[in-house]
């Protein structure tokens, strides 16, 4: 413990120089901590863009370029019969085909282009509760027997932000592709642009609006009976679709994806970007540690006499080494504490800004593991930077040192 007291006193005495050295590590840690915190918030924001949180749903899409919403660029679309066939697989609880189409939405004389997703009649409850995981904020969801009604995502609601200049509330009439529809309800905010800007409409009505033949679907969603059956179901669906589309294994012209797989892809891309930025930010920590080496070397030179005295009254080499080693680790640690604190502060402000920008509702969480490792890391970086100067100090010849 004595080492720490001694180290702290020395650092305080040295004034400006210690603070400047600290500043180096401080800025580096600040950059890394704030970027990691912001990166994590971004990950949550992007992940929530992918909407549905149900992990027992498998999505089937026809092969094609992935440049837009599902189904927009396929060469050989899926059909409603495919959905019927998948439904008959024993591990599948139910399966529905869904269409996602682009259309015109008009209200208060203002027109916007957006997406509409189909709700298969008779499967309303399954779609809301299981596939899309949506809840109603105002009004009600679509119910069997409804006609000429739509449910809108949350972002349509507020006149100040919805670009239509007027609140859209249940009961109002809107124009979709120039046809009149009554708004049955507005959904709760999901924090996903995909869902919050989407029109939910009955399948038949969507097909009629878009001139769809009613046979092809953009994607098929299948709810699997239980989580343990996911792998088996995935294989069975693949096998069935291969038969139906007459392709061999390895030549699939369709894709079968689980929510985990989608998230994994997204996360690995985001992770790579984050890692890249952090590596660049870490360079400043490296530079900061060079500053510590520099300061410690000077410090050893300045205290040559002191070291000589300590040695002549019986201090061991190892004690001198520890003294400087810990002092330098301390420099790192103090820089790390300040850096972590302000880094988290910046992360917090940044998260608020992201929420503001995307209209998402990411909760801010302090990553204690990150703080723990940052502090340990900053102490270690300081200590490692101090090794050479500390060794130098320990090796001093007391006689020569006393002579100055």
């Amino acid at each position, binding site marked *: 413990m004595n080492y720490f007291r001694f180290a702290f006193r020395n650092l305080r005495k040295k004034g*400006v*120089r210690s603070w*400047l*050295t600290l*500043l*180096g590590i401080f*800025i*580096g840690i600040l*950059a890394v901590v704030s*970027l990691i915190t912001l990166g994590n918030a971004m990950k949550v924001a992007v992940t929530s863009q992918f909407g549905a949180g149900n992990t027992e749903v498998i999505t089937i899409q026809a*092969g*094609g*370029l992935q*440049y*837009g*919403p599902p189904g*927009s*660029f*396929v*060469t*050989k679309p899926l059909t409603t019969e495919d959905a019927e066939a998948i439904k008959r697989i024993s591990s599948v609880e139910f399966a529905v085909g869904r269409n996602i*189409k*682009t*259309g*015109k939405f*008009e209200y208060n004389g*203002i*027109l916007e*282009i*957006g*997406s509409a997703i189909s709700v298969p009649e008779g499967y309303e409850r399954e779609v809301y509760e299981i596939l899309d995981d949506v809840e109603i904020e105002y009004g009600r969801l679509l119910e069997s027997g409804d006609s000429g009604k739509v449910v809108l995502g949350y972002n349509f609601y507020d006149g100040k932000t919805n670009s239509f200049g007027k609140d859209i509330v249940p009961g109002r009439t809107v124009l979709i592709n120039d046809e009149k529809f009554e708004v049955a309800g507005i959904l709760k905010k999901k924090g996903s642009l995909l869902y919050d800007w989407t029109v939910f409409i009955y399948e038949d009505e969507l097909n009629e609006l*878009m001139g769809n033949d009613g046979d092809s679907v953009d994607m098929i969603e299948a709810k699997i009976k239980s989580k343990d059956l996911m792998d088996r179901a995935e294989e069975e669906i693949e096998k069935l679709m291969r038969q139906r589309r007459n392709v*061999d294994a*390895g*030549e*699939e*012209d369709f894709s079968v994806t689980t929510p985990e797989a989608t998230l994994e892809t997204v996360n690995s891309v985001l992770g790579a970007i984050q890692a890249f*930025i952090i590596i*660049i*930010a870490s*360079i*400043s920590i*490296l*530079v*900061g540690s*060079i*500053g510590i*080496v*520099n*300061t410690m*070397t*000077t410090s050893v030179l300045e205290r040559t006499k002191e070291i000589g005295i300590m040695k002549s009254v019986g201090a061991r080499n190892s004690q001198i080494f520890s003294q400087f080693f810990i002092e330098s680790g301390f420099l790192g640690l103090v820089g790390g504490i300040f850096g972590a604190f302000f880094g988290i502060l910046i992360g917090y402000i940044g998260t608020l800004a992201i929420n503001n920008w995307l209209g998402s509702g990411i909760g801010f969480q302090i990553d204690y593991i990150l703080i723990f490792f940052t502090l340990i890391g900053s102490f270690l970086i300081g200590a490692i930077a101090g090794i050479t100067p500390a060794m130098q100090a320990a090796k001093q010849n007391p006689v020569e040192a006393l002579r100055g």
Partner: protein
Amino acid sequence: MISKESVKYSLNNLKNRKRRSAFTIISIFVGITTIFIFVSFGLGLYSYIDEYISGGSVDKVIIQSKGTSLSGMDDTFAFTEDELEAIEATSGVYEASGVYFKSAEVVQGKKRIYTLIFGYDPKKPLIMDTFNIGIEKGRDLNDGDSSAVLGYNYLSDNKIFPKGYSVGERIEIQEEKVKIIGFYEEIGSPQDDAQIYVTNDFMRDLYGENISYNWIVARVDIEDIDRVVENIEKNLRKERGLEEGKEDFFVQSFADMMETYTVVLDMVIGFIILIALISVLVSAVNTANTMITSVLERIKEIGIMKSVGARNSYILGIFLFESSFLGFIAGIIGCAVGWLISYSGALILDNIGYGFLQPGFPVSLFAGCIIFAVLTGAISGIAPAINAMRINPVEALRYE
């Protein structure tokens, strides 16, 4: 202010404190290297864009439909032949032609890929005029060709398919065996070099008569481009029976479209450099630290110099020169290391198909980085140098 002697004196001082000088240099050069690398790749990207956007693009206007996916890919509100004619009949429009983008299924043996197939009118290749892409092998499309020109990567084995293709062979596109008449030069990105180009007529053979144009490209009177754009909008609105403000399409000059890409590129590179600047800031702090120590060590020396008549400005000059010189050396090393890393990084990127990510090394980049390093050194030396200047010679001589 800076004489030959003072330079000699400073250099000697730096030499005597080799280790400390070395550390200071390392800390500056690391930051400079990072900045050098990103700026060089950024410059390379800008010149890549410049190189591929030909002079033929200035008088082109692009009409796209609005949609929910990547620009022009959503064909919900795509354009018909009548609409193309309406645009062509607009005053100020010299000629106009339609462009198709579709997803194509391409098969070789057991391997199946999906890629972008691109249809244009060889009689009016307005879209091709905007890009500088030449033919690598074979020939370009002519009117009436029921064949395809392929992207560069189809030439080699194991890039797209196990076996490469050559001119005259047939390739299976959308379940049709299509004759290959040529290959485009390398564009330098795996997506672009896997594209397939056909004539609009052949596109309709492959995908059916009633497909519609994703883009319409028009060559217009550049003197009066704003009015022409307005006229196109008006005519297209009339053709589609739309009210003003309720368009399901938008008209953009090619130059404006490219500008949006450049703005995004600016933002990305700016952000990375900002982060790299953090390390330069840290190294400036280090340099200040070194210089403060250096001043403290030489207090007596400074006192002697002053007592034999050295002016304040002379002392200031010595220390400013020392810190700038450290920055200068760091700048040179930073550029050298940065160049080495960018150059070898580019070789690796080229190998994995991202040939468009090539760095540019103009002289101004080297000069800029070195000047920046010198400035970093000089600025961090200001406070210590002023300290040194203010030293009272009497007290300094007494200083232990």
